[in-house]
């Protein structure tokens, strides 16, 4: 039988065909041998079993079965392929990166900056938004809220839990300050007051002792669970701590448990140190139905979907609203007239929706900016690789000419760029660690124990993110140069000519990359400009009171169990003592000082028919003592300030601000006319107060935003347990602060000193987001500009080398140095101009997303849009000037002799 007919039949037989097929995945070097070995075996077996056509189906199946094991064999040979080709590529790539040290360093550095910034911001966003609570069964845990991020009242929560069939548990918590007394001193710690089932719902075990029993929040039990860190840091991990008594708010609590390490409560990004039962709260708020001060975390039963649970909770919500109608004003801000809807969101990151919105806005902005920087870095590296592709033209042409496949070459070049990207990624992780430290140190200036302590980790998730990002960037910046490099005009490249058509194309590509870089960095710089302008505007805002030489502090005597009478005496004595301290010119107290952390307000109703303006409306207000206006430096424009004669026994009086006077009495000519008129502060049962003065407007709850209405009443006419004190000093010195501490300690050594800061520092808290935004975007924008300038410089230098011969001819024909200078700079500036035009269009489109973050400046601020391109053009001019000057140094004779 002729051989060829055998081969023909070989393709018909399924087992042989399978071997052909599987052979495709065997490494090429081994393929022929491999196929032959299997084919020979199969056919030998076939011969033994007699001719194929006469074989029974059982034997045929046996042959097929045997041939199928060839697949496993082929799979086992795969590592050899990796060894062969990949390691070859890797070795070659590494050698190249080592030999071109300068290029490697620049590329790795720019990638590291881009990747590092992205990784750091990823770990920030992860900590703030996406990380699960350190709890069991996370997939069933949800943050429950009503309306626009509102919480629940204690009574309602109990009803939800009792009536619901979808909930395995629903726990409430709220943060509060506790004065922790140890020895002579006392300090403030952050506590969560929680329902008894809190640890059970979260599934958090105790390292020591036990958690609360679920009935321990129904009646007051003075028991406390402390965090692992609290136990370690303050008691050195004392094994006898459980069962001991600790003093919180001047009351002794029995320690019943210590949480496992790593658990810091549910209120990310704050860290709770102790947990106390909710029933230990004083005051009527536990019985209120209309409250919304408690955050809720709900655990669904297994198998219940979020939608089912939401639907059922909403039904209960409706029932509760019918049984206990809420006042209209309660729903003004979020829920509308129909009340707040219940919704569930996965319990990840920050539970408070307001803080979460800020955090996602901030991290969203930061990550967009970081992505832009990474893109600029990618363009830069692509540019460098294109330049090196030109230098390797000859090598690649030779490899192509001797038969290397183009895909194989592209793979080789991509391996090199992936190596660069991975090196950039590794350096980026190191950088991210450092950037994380920086981010931690830039936390907003909140007073203890409220410092934000985001737990930034470069954990597995962050590393996987970095790895993926590196691989992606490697492909992004590597593919185009690899494609371009493997398409040289063979003949001219082999002859060593540099002015080939491939070179021209590559130059076009490089120009395109530079235009992109310029455009992207312009977008960044315009954003930076807008943020800086916004910060300037915000810094220029006058808060309506003096911020220099003012110290502000919290005194929480209510939490120490002071009653009204004791509180009044304490207050009186403290003012007397402080008045004698040298350096203090005025002391005043208020239930809160503006631009703090808390706010106050109440319903205001105007007496007489004022139309809509007279209707009850929530308005910012404060309870202050008689020297408040003097101490804060708020001018009284009409009428008088409060005096010592305004006491609980005298007529109820109030002072309003200009805005309130103008808005509520629309028909007055002068704000002084409101003096003597009456307003009611509170609900229908509250008494009327006579207006005795009009004070200047000010900023109470935020620096930006419109001017709010405001009112003041004497603190003696409505006492409060928690008050703040403002001290007007003649100079800012630490001596005065310690003198104040001494005086307070002399009155009550257990009173913790909370948040003594200067008013200026407090105002700076409100400037913090703007300052951060401006700083971050400006820093990264500057980085982008630097990278773009480097890119431009690289391309222009390359162009000069490419055109050496042409420049030489021109100079030989009489062109002057300035003609050459002009020509090169002109080319560079044309690219810059194209980038600026595209970038301006991009910025015009994008900056409107920034509008909500800007204050006092339009998202299309003409000054920024005109100024930034000028700055960029100046830098570009410099970047072009250097290669242009080099072009003028070309020696015509030398240039003509080349090639």
């Amino acid at each position, binding site marked *: 039988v002729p*051989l060829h007919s055998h081969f023909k039949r070989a393709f018909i037989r399924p087992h042989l065909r399978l071997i052909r097929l599987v052979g495709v995945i065997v490494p090429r070097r081994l393929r022929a041998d491999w196929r*032959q070995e299997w084919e020979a*075996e*199969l056919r030998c077996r076939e*011969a033994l079993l007699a001719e194929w056509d006469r074989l029974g189906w059982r034997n045929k199946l046996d042959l097929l079965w*045997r041939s199928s094991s060839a*697949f496993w064999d082929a799979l086992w040979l795969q590592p050899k392929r990796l060894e062969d080709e990949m390691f070859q590529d890797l070795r070659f790539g590494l050698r190249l990166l080592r030999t071109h040290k300068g290029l490697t360093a620049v590329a790795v550095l720019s990638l590291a900056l881009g990747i590092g910034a992205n990784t750091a911001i990823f770990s920030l966003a992860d900590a703030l938004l996406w990380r699960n609570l350190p709890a069991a069964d996370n997939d069933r845990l949800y943050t429950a809220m009503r309306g626009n991020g509102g919480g629940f009242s204690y009574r309602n929560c109990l009803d939800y839990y009792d009536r619901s069939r979808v909930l395995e548990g629903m726990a409430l918590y709220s943060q509060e300050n506790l004065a922790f007394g140890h020895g002579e001193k006392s300090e403030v710690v952050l506590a969560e007051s929680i329902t008894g089932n809190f640890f059970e719902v979260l599934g958090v075990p105790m390292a020591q002792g036990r958690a609360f029993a679920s009935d321990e929040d129904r009646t007051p039990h003075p028991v406390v669970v402390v965090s692992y860190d609290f136990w370690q840091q303050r008691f050195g991990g004392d094994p006898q701590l459980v069962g001991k008594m600790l003093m919180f708010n001047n009351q002794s609590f029995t320690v019943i448990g210590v949480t496992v390490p790593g658990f810091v409560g549910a209120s990310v990004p704050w860290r709770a140190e102790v947990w106390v039962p909710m029933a230990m709260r004083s005051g009527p708020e536990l019985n209120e139905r209309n409250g919304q001060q408690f955050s809720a975390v709900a655990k669904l039963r297994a198998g219940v979907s979020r939608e089912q649970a939401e639907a059922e909770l909403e039904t209960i919500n409706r029932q509760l609203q019918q049984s206990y109608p809420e006042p209209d004003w309660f729903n003004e801000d979020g829920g509308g007239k129909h009340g707040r809807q219940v919704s569930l969101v996965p319990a990840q990151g920050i539970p408070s929706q307001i803080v979460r919105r800020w955090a996602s806005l901030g991290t969203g902005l930061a990550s967009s900016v970081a992505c832009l920087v990474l893109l600029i870095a990618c363009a830069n590296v692509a540019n460098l690789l294109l330049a090196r592709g030109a230098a390797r033209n000859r090598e690649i042409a030779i490899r192509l000419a001797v038969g290397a496949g183009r895909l194989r070459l592209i793979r080789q070049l991509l391996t090199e760029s992936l190596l660069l990207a991975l090196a950039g990624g590794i350096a980026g992780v190191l950088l991210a660690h450092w950037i994380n430290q920086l981010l931690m140190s830039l936390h907003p200036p909140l007073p203890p124990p409220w410092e934000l302590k985001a737990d930034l980790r470069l954990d597995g998730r962050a590393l996987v993110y970095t790895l993926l990002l590196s691989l992606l960037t490697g492909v992004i910046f590597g593919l185009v140069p690899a494609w371009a490099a493997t398409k040289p005009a063979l003949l001219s490249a082999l002859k060593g000519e540099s002015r080939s058509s491939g070179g021209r194309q590559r130059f076009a590509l490089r120009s395109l990359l530079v235009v992109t870089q310029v455009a992207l960095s312009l977008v960044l710089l315009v954003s930076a400009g807008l943020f800086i302008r916004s910060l300037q505007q915000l810094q220029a805002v006058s808060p309506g009171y003096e911020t220099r030489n003012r110290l502000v502090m919290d005194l929480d005597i209510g939490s120490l169990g002071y009653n009204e009478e004791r509180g009044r005496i304490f207050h009186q004595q403290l003012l007397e003592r402080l008045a004698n301290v040298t350096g203090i010119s005025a002391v005043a107290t208020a239930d809160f000082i503006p631009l703090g952390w808390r706010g106050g307000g109440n319903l205001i109703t105007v007496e007489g028919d004022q139309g809509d303006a007279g209707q009850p409306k929530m308005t910012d207000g404060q309870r202050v003592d008689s020297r408040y206006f003097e101490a804060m430096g708020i001018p009284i424009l009409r009428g008088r300030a409060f005096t010592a004669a305004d006491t609980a026994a005298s007529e109820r009086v109030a002072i309003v601000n200009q805005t309130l006077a103008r808005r509520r009495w629309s028909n007055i000519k002068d704000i002084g006319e409101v003096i003597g008129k009456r307003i009611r502060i509170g609900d229908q049962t509250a008494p009327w107060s006579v207006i005795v003065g009009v004070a200047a407007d000010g900023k109470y709850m935020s620096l930006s935003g419109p001017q709010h209405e405001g009112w003041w009443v004497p603190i003696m006419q409505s006492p409060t347990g928690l008050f703040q004190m403002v001290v007007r000093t003649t100079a800012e010195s630490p001596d005065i602060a310690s003198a104040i501490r001494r005086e307070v300690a002399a009155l009550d050594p257990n009173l913790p000193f909370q948040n003594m800061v200067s008013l200026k520092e407090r105002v700076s808290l409100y400037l913090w987001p703007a300052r951060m935004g401006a700083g971050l975007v400006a820093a990264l924008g500057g980085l982008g500009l630097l990278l773009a300038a480097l890119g431009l410089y690289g391309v222009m230098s390359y162009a000069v080398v490419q055109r050496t011969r042409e420049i030489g001819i021109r100079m030989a024909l009489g062109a002057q140095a300035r003609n050459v200078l002009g020509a090169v700079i002109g080319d560079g500036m044309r690219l810059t101009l194209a980038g600026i035009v595209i970038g301006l269009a991009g910025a015009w489109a994008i900056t409107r997303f920034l509008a909500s973050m800007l204050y006092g400046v339009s998202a299309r601020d003409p000054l920024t849009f005109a100024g930034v391109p000028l700055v960029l053009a100046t830098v570009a001019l410099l970047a072009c000037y250097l290669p242009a000057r080099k072009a003028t140094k070309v020696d015509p004779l030398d240039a003509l002799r080349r090639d």
Partner: protein
Amino acid sequence: MGKGFLTYSTAVILQAVSNGYLYGFDIIDITGLPGGTVYPALRRLEDAGYLRSKWEEPHIAQTEPRPPRKYYELTREGRDALAEAVKRYRQLEQTQTKKERERKPSRA
């Protein structure tokens, strides 16, 4: 493959080659191991230097007619490794029979 102990199935394959079953399919038949085990084992044994492969003379193949088959031979290292493995597995076998012997009286 390092110089560690051979697994049982690898030792069996080596033993089969040493007994004169030189071709892949013959080894599969005599050991009863699946092809997906035998072939990768052969590759690893060859990489480790315990086996060496050769193509049979073309004139044998032409008479059939088919491509020449590949056959495997033991190297010196392979023979040593096999001897050691056999020794070890025999010891193992002895411990088993010894145990059985000890158990027998109690059963009686």
